[in-house]
């Protein structure tokens, strides 16, 4: 086995056997939340980090995923449908993404970023007021399918693994190259044969799909959602951006690391300080952006990359020109 595979497989196995070894529900809960945020960070990053299309309103997709499965269960399906209903949540979010992307991605500049922000707010108000379907501000409450946190642990582990693997595969393919080209220069991308509108839309759909799955999982796990929670601007949309920036935008593992740090910080503060975790997290982000503008993982990779390039090419000028 290669060194890289060991680095991946060993931690994955540890995470997998963890619930069997420890039955501490609190720690399981923390791990579940961390993995949920890993999914959110990694999905946001595909669009915002790799494709360069910053979304200020990913809560729109998170909430749509959550409500899609919640309405499914509320309309008479047994609660157990909800966990395969994760797919329904993902598809609903991807459908919404197609709609907003199809409209906004013909334009360049901040239109998409702002439209999706507006979209998430609109959806929050719709969920709040369309009482027949969403129960309005009362939210939707149901008995979860599983009593055991372990089951949720494995489900979210699988989702997180699939999300990371999918983004990894995408970035190693034609799609990934096209996403990066779009981020770097849309004019150049067009002249090199890239239909920028189409590929921005594909990136958004993948990103929204996994965000929707995460939203759907969240509602399954918590057994309760209301519009204020799942369409929250600062706690969902903005936090997805911050988690990504902290760990490193446009890196595969950066958002995952950012997610874990975020959960550690917010729980640490909740338990030992009581409040103020957002203030601390905000300061942490400022410090990271000031000193490591590429985020934690991004800065490490850059330092490594520089060294490799230096050793690879001692003096390219002599050979090249």
């Amino acid at each position, binding site marked *: 086995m290669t060194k890289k595979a060991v680095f991946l497989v060993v931690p994955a196995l540890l995470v997998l056997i963890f619930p069997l070894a420890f039955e501490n529900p609190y720690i399981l809960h923390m791990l579940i939340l961390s993995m949920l945020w890993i999914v959110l960070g990694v999905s946001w990053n595909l669009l915002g980090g790799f494709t360069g299309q910053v979304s200020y309103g990913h809560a729109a997709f998170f909430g749509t995923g959550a409500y899609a499965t919640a309405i499914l269960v509320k309309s008479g399906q047994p609660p157990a449908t909800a966990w395969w209903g994760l797919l329904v949540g993902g598809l609903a979010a991807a459908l919404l993404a197609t709609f907003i992307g199809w409209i906004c991605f013909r334009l360049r500049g901040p239109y998409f970023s702002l439209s999706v922000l507006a979209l998430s707010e609109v959806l929050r108000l719709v969920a709040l007021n369309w009482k027949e379907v969403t129960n309005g501000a009362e939210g939707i409450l149901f008995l979860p399918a599983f009593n055991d946190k372990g089951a949720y642990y494995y489900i979210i582990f699988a989702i997180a693994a699939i999300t990371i693997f999918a983004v990894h595969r995408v970035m*190693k*393919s*034609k799609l990934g*190259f*096209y996403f*990066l*080209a779009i981020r*770097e*220069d849309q*004019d*150049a*991308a*067009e*002249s*090199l*044969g*890239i*239909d*920028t509108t189409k590929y921005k839309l594909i990136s958004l759909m993948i990103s929204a799909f996994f965000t929707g799955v995460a939203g759907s999982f969240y509602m399954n796990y918590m057994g309760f959602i209301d519009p204020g929670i799942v369409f929250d601007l600062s706690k969902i949309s903005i936090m997805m951006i911050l988690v990504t920036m902290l760990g490193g935008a446009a890196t595969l593992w950066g958002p995952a690391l950012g997610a874990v740090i975020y959960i550690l910080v917010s729980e640490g503060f909740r338990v030992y300080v009581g409040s103020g975790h957002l203030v601390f997290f905000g300061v942490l982000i400022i410090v990271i952006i000031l000193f490591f503008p590429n985020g934690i993982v991004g800065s490490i990779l850059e330092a490594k990359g520089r060294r490799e*390039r230096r050793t*690879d*090419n001692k003096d*390219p*000028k002599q*050979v*090249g*020109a």
Partner: protein
Amino acid sequence: MSLLELTGVSKRFGGLQAVGDITFSVEKGEILGLIGPNGAGKTTIFNLINGYYAPDVGEIKLNGEPIQGLKPYKVCRKGLARTFQVVKPLGRLSVLENVMVSAFSKTNHLPEARQIALEAISFTGMDAWKDNLAKSLPLGMRKRLEMARALATKPQLLLLDENFAGLNPSEVERTIEIVKKIHATGITILIIEHNMRVIMAISQRLLAINYGVKIAEGSPEEVANNGKVIEAYLGVAHA
């Protein structure tokens, strides 16, 4: 049938007639030079051909097929590649990745794209630079990267927009060689260039424009000695 045909093409930006009723054609296998003073409309013509702008009137045909108004990525897939005067490297990607992006217009598979890209890179003599980030390249190499990228789309017709500007004399010589080598593989070239020594050395036919209007067309010697061309560059007293 000509490879590229422009018939009565005009483009106006507000009150400025950037290109007025231009008609010319590029024959398969030739190198046609496009010259004219600054602001004559040369790059606008490229932008019209390549699909950045749609002409207000007129027709542009590639292989007899109308392409005016098509988006740049579609024009690219029909076999037309271009370089930019103001270079547009994909900064945070390596040279190899830059060229691979354009190679993906010919294949969906990574190893093949890599192969096409490596060929284009060595064709333009950039092997030693392939792992450098595009943003770290000096200008001469950025201009060459533009060519490598355009080549990797395997075009029939290549539009070169001032690929010699800002190069030192030895780089100019090297780039002339590369352009001739590209031409030798059967790619037709339409080139914009200010450096008269270069354009006389490479092109088989010249087209001169001023204020968006064609003022002369013919062999390089004819055009260079044409009164209107000299007037456009140097003023009436010299004509």
